[in-house]
C-alpha cells in the first residue's frame, strides 16, 4: 500500500465533435501523494479543466476516456455512475471558477450546505445544520448563523467562493480539486482565499489539485507543479525547480510572459509565445509545442518524449536553455531606456467629477475625482472591482455624462455625452474594451470593423484607399491581410484584441482609454498585447488612460498611477513614487495581495477583510476606514482624510502623514 491518493496512468480523453475526433487530454501520467498539493498550469485550451472533470468522471456524453485513474487504489473509471456518487462531493470535492453560477440562487446557503451531509452522511437535519455551521467556522467566516439564512446573491463574490469551499470540506474529502477558484475575484479577496485554502489543507490533511493559468497563484498554494500543454503533461517537478530552472521551452516561456515586480516598459519587453493553442485531432502525434517553439532544431521532434531530469522532475523536452538556437529572451531587455518620464501639460483634465447612478437609490460610482492625463503619457488606474475605474473611463469616453464636475480635453469641455460631441472630438478619444469578443461585432468582417471609423470620422470614402490603410494597420498589429475577410468568431482572443486595437488606432486618436484590455486574455497573449500597446504608444505618441485591476500590468505600462477606492482617489503619483513607500494603506494592501512568481521574493502579509462598503451610502470619513489596518483613530470614521502631498507629483488622502 502506498501513500498516493491519486494515480493517473496513461489517461486519454477524446471528444467526437463535428469534424472528427479531437484529443483533449492525452497520455497523462500523474501521481498525487497524501497531503500533497499540486498546481496545474497552462493556457486555456490545454485540457486542465477536462482533466479535473475526468477525475470526477463527469464529462460530456461525446467524450471517450481510456487509461486508469486510481483513487486510493481503486480505479474510478471502472465504477458505475451510482458508485461514483459516493466519491463526488464526499471523497473528492471540487470548487469551480464562478461561485455565482455554482450556487443555486433560489436556495438558502444553509440549505445548500446541509444537502451535502444529508446525502453523504445520512444525518438528521439538525446534525446537518450543525456540521454546516462548523464548516463555516472552520473557514473563519463571521456570523455563520446569520449566513446560513441568506441567499447567494446577498453576499459578495469572495464570500460565495468561501461558501463553495466550505461545501467542499464538509465531508472532509481526501482530495480537493480547485478549478481556477480565484480567477473571477479581486486580488485582495484572492489573497484571503489562498490563505484559507492553505490553512484548511493543514487542518484536514487533504491533498489538493489546484488548476490555474496564473503562475503566481500556483506558486503560493502548491508544492509540485504540473505544466500542461495541448492536453499533455509537458513538465512536472517541485515548485522551486520548475520556476528556477524549467526544462521545457513552454514552461520557460510561460513563466516569462508575466510582468513581474519591477518590470517596466522602458527597460523590458515582455516575453510572448507566438500563435495559440491549437486543438489536436486524436490521431495527430509528435511534439504539441513544435509550431510555437523558439528553441526547435531539426531533429528535436524525434527526440521528444518524457524524460527524467532529476528523481522528482520530469519533462518532455529539455531545450529550454538550449544554446544551439539564439535565445530570444536576451532581446527582451531594451539596451537603452527609451525615454524619460513625459512631463508635459495636461491633455485630459478631469475636474471634480461625480457620477451618480439611479434616482431614488443613489449609487455613488465616481465621487469627486480630479486627475489629469498628461500628453504622451500613460495614466494607470488601479483598484478593486466596484471602485469606479471603469465608470470614470467610460465617462471620459462619452458613454456617460458626469453628474457633477467637468472633463476638459485639450481645453475643450467634453462633459457631454457622445451625442453632443463633435466628430473631431469623437476621433480624438478612442476606447478599447475588456472583452474583444463582445466589442467587435460578430457579424462584421475585420475590414468592415476597422474601416467603419475611417469612413465615418475621417471621411475617407474610397474603399481602396481604406483597404490599403487597413492592411498597413493590420501589419502594425502583427496580422496579415488574410484577416480582412474574417469575422471575429473565427479569431482567437488575442487576434480579436489586436483587431480592436487596430480599430482604435485607425483614426489616429490622441487619447486611448484602455479598459482592462488584457484581463480576458491568456498570459502569453496578455504580454503580446501589452508589448503592442507599448510600441504603438511610442510610435504614435498618444496618451493612454489604462485601467486594470492588475498592479503588475499597471506598473509595467504606466508613467503615472492612480489608485482608486470606492469612487475616490486614494493615491496618485509617478509610477515609482506610488509603488514605493510611503504609500496609502490601501495601496500597500493591494501590493501585498498580488501573488508573486519568484519564490525568493518576500511576500507581503497584509490581508484585507470585509468588502467594499455599500456604494449607495455617503461616507462621512475615509472610505477605506472600515477595512484599514493602520487607523489614526476615531477621526478616520468621521472626517474626510486630508490630502498629503509627498512631492510635486505625488499625494494621497490619509489622516496619517506617512501613510502605511
Amino acid at each position, binding site marked *: 500500500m502506498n501513500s498516493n491518493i491519486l494515480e493517473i496512468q496513461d489517461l486519454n480523453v477524446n471528444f467526437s465533435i463535428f469534424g472528427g475526433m479531437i484529443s483533449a487530454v492525452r497520455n497523462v501520467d500523474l501521481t498525487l501523494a497524501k497531503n500533497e498539493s499540486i498546481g496545474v498550469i497552462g493556457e486555456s485550451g490545454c485540457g486542465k479543466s477536462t482533466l479535473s472533470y475526468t477525475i470526477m468522471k463527469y464529462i460530456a456524453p461525446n467524450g471517450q476516456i481510456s487509461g486508469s485513474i486510481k483513487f486510493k487504489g481503486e480505479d474510478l473509471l471502472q465504477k458505475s455512475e451510482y458508485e461514483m456518487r459516493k466519491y463526488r462531493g464526499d471523497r473528492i470535492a471540487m470548487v469551480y471558477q464562478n461561485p455565482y453560477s455554482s450556487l443555486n440562487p433560489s436556495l438558502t446557503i444553509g440549505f445548500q450546505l446541509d444537502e451535502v451531509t444529508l446525502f453523504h452522511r445520512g444525518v438528521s437535519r439538525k446534525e446537518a445544520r450543525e456540521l454546516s455551521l462548523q464548516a463555516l467556522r472552520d473557514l473563519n467566516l463571521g456570523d455563520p448563523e446569520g449566513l446560513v439564512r441568506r441567499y447567494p446573491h446577498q453576499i459578495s463574490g469572495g464570500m460565495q467562493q468561501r461558501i463553495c469551499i466550505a461545501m467542499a470540506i464538509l465531508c472532509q474529502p481526501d482530495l480537493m480539486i480547485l478549478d481556477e477558484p480565484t480567477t473571477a475575484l479581486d486580488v485582495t479577496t484572492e489573497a484571503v482565499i489562498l490563505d484559507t485554502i492553505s490553512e484548511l489543507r493543514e487542518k484536514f490533511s487533504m491533498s489538493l489539485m489546484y488548476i490555474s493559468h496564473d503562475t503566481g497563484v500556483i506558486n503560493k498554494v502548491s508544492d509540485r507543479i504540473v505544466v500542461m500543454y495541448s492536453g499533455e503533461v509537458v513538465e512536472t517537478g517541485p515548485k522551486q525547480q520548475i520556476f528556477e530552472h524549467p526544462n521545457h521551452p513552454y514552461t520557460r516561456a510561460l513563466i516569462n510572459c508575466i510582468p513581474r515586480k519591477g518590470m517596466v516598459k522602458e527597460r523590458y519587453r515582455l516575453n510572448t509565445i507566438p500563435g495559440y493553442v491549437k486543438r489536436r485531432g486524436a490521431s495527430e502525434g509528435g511534439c504539441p509545442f513544435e509550431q510555437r517553439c523558439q528553441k526547435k532544431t531539426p531533429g528535436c521532434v524525434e527526440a521528444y518524449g518524457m524524460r527524467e531530469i532529476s528523481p522528482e522532475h520530469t519533462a518532455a523536452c529539455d531545450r529550454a536553455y538550449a544554446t544551439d538556437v539564439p535565445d530570444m529572451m536576451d532581446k527582451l531587455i531594451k539596451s537603452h531606456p527609451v525615454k524619460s518620464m513625459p512631463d508635459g501639460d495636461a491633455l485630459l483634465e478631469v475636474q471634480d467629477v461625480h457620477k451618480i447612478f439611479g434616482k431614488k437609490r443613489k449609487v455613488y460610482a465616481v465621487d469627486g475625482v480630479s486627475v489629469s492625463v498628461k500628453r504622451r503619457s500613460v495614466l494607470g488606474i488601479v483598484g478593486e472591482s466596484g471602485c469606479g475605474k471603469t465608470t470614470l473611463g467610460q465617462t471620459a469616453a462619452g*458613454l456617460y455624462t458626469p453628474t457633477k464636475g467637468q472633463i476638459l480635453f485639450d481645453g475643450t469641455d467634453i462633459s457631454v455625452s457622445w451625442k453632443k460631441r463633435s*466628430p473631431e472630438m469623437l476621433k480624438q478619444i478612442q476606447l478599447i*474594451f475588456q472583452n474583444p469578443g463582445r466589442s467587435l461585432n460578430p457579424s462584421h468582417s475585420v475590414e468592415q470593423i476597422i474601416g467603419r471609423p475611417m469612413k*465615418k470620422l475621417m471621411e475617407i470614402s474610397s474603399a481602396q484607399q481604406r483597404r490599403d490603410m487597413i492592411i498597413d494597420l493590420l501589419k502594425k498589429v502583427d496580422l496579415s491581410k488574410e484577416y480582412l475577410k474574417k469575422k471575429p468568431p473565427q479569431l482567437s482572443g488575442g487576434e480579436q484584441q489586436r483587431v480592436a486595437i487596430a480599430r482604435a488606432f485607425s483614426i489616429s486618436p490622441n487619447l486611448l482609454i484602455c479598459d482592462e484590455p488584457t484581463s480576458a486574455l491568456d498570459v502569453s497573449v496578455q504580454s503580446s498585447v501589452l508589448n503592442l500597446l507599448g510600441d504603438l504608444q511610442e510610435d504614435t505618441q498618444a496618451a493612454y488612460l489604462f485601467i486594470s485591476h492588475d498592479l503588475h500590468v499597471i506598473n509595467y505600462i504606466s508613467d503615472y498611477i492612480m489608485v482608486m477606492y470606492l469612487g475616490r482617489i486614494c493615491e496618485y503619483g509617478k509610477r515609482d513614487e506610488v509603488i514605493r513607500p510611503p504609500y496609502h494603506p490601501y495601496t500597500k494592501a493591494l501590493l501585498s495581495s498580488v501573488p508573486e512568481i519568484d519564490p525568493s521574493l518576500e511576500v507581503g502579509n497584509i490581508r484585507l477583510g470585509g468588502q467594499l462598503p455599500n456604494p449607495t451610502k455617503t461616507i462621512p470619513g475615509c472610505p477605506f476606514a472600515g477595512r484599514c489596518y493602520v487607523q489614526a483613530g476615531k477621526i478616520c470614521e468621521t472626517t474626510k482624510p486630508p490630502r498629503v502631498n509627498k512631492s510635486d507629483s505625488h499625494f494621497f488622502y490619509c489622516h496619517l502623514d506617512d501613510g502605511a
Partner: protein
Amino acid sequence: MKYILYQLKRSPLAILGIAILLFWIFLAIFGPSLTPFTHTEMDSLHQMAAPGVNNHVLGTDSLGRDLLTRIIVGSRSILTVALLTSIASTFFGIIVGFSAGYFGGAIDRAVLRMLDIMMAIPPLVLAMVVLGVLGGSSIMSLSLIVSIAFIPATARVSRGSLLTCKSSEYVDAARIRGESHLYIMFVEILPNTIGPIIVEATARFAYSIMMVASLGFLGVGLQPPTPDWGMMVIENRPIITDAPWAVFYPALAIASLVISISLFSDFVSKVLIHEQ
C-alpha cells in the same frame, strides 16, 4: 453549409419535414397541370366517389369535385398567404420591437401596453371580426389581417433579441464614433439577432397555415370558388359518414404541412443557435 449537411444527417425528422414541405411546394407549382380535372369541375356521375374511382385519386366530394385537384389548388393559396404573412409580420415585428427595445423608457412601455391589448384579443377572433366586417376576403386582405394579428408575437421576439445585443460593447463602440440610431439598429444589431427572428418567422409560417385553415373552417376564409382546405373540411363534414375521405384528406393536408414546417423550424433553430 457543411455544418448544415452534417446536422441534417443526424436528424431524420428534419429530413422528413423538409421532404414533405418540398413535396407541397412542388405540388403547388406543378400540381394543377398534373391532374386531368379542374377544381370547379363537377363529375355528376361520381358524387362522393371513393378514392380511385374514375381517375379520382382521392375521391370526390358531395358535388362530385375532384378532391386531389381541390387540395392541390388550395395549397397554392394557403402557401401564398402563409408566406406573405410570415414575411409581413416579421418585417413589422422587427420595426415595432426594435424601436421599442432600442429607445426604451416611455416608448417601450407604450408599445408594450399596446401589444398587450392586441394580445388580449385572440388572433382568431380579431381576424374573424375584421374579415366579417369586410365581408369576404381575398389573398391580400387575409394576409394583411393575419400578419397584424401576429405582430405582437414577432415584435416581442425581436425586442427580446435586440435587448440581449443592445448592451454589447460593440454597440457602445458604435455610439462613441457617433453612429446614427438607424445604423446601430440595422447594421450593428440586426445581423446578430437574425437567428431567433428567422426561427420565429418559420414558426409563424406554420401558425398562419393553421390560422388560414381555421378561418376557412369558420367560413370567413377565402371565398368560393377558390378551394380552401379549412373550408373543404367544413363543407364535407355533413357527409363524413358516407365519404370520410372528403374530410380526411384536406385535414391530412393541413396537418402534414403544419407538422413539416414545425420540423423544419426546429431544424433551423438548431443550426442557427450553433452559429451564434
